[in-house]
């Protein structure tokens, strides 16, 4: 059960392989990764992610614990970055393993929905001219209702 809140870049492929290598008897592995996208109208210089040290790890730990109690999982992993990120870099990833695919998929979606709206991270998009905090989306809050 790896949880890492870090400023450093990480290698999706290496993390995926390390996660899989640690499994035993799991038939299904799901990963999600979020990548910094450029803005439609204005090139982004960088994304700044602020977080709440201490609470972040605690909140993610509780979300992972909830996923493990709801689905039949072998393991789960969450890596989330903060600080300066550039377009194309990975922001975060989750990975889940389970005997069967439905559990692995649902748990990964649950983790993502909760990380989006319940883990204390805030994204700011910095362009040549300005800097804007990303607004939370209603659809992200509503996504929690399905669980």
């Amino acid at each position, binding site marked *: 059960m790896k949880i890492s809140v870090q400023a450093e870049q990480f290698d999706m492929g290496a993390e995926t392989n390390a996660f899989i290598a640690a499994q035993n008897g799991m038939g299904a592995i799901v990963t999600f990764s*979020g990548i910094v996208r450029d803005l439609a109208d204005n090139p982004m210089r960088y994304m700044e992610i*602020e*977080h*709440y040290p*201490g*609470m972040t790890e*605690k*909140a993610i730990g509780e979300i992972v614990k909830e996923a493990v109690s709801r689905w039949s999982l072998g393991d789960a992993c969450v890596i*989330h970055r903060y600080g300066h990120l550039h377009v194309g870099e990975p*922001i*975060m990833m989750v990975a889940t393993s389970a005997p069967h695919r439905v559990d692995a998929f649902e748990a990964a979606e649950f983790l*993502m929905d909760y*990380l*989006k*709206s*319940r*883990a*204390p*991270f*805030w*994204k*700011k998009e910095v362009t040549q001219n300005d800097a804007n*905090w*990303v*607004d*939370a989306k209603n659809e992200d*809050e509503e996504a929690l209702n399905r669980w």
Partner: protein
Amino acid sequence: MIKVMYFAWVRERIGEASESIETEAATVSELIEELRCKEPRYNMAFSDLSALRVAVDQTLTDFDCPLADAKEVAFFPPMTGG
């Protein structure tokens, strides 16, 4: 003494990341009222509570939450992780 923390645009509007406050406020709402009276920058930051979230001792809660024994209160906009 309570440690009060601000994140994202709340931090930017208030101009600091955290401060220690001597307060008798019994709930988060009472603390917010005290802060709003301090200075205009606080009043502005707390003008629309529907745009704010609060955590007491690192647990997300609501504005009715009592502050008895609380060590740390944090104010911030809705989270945008993932």
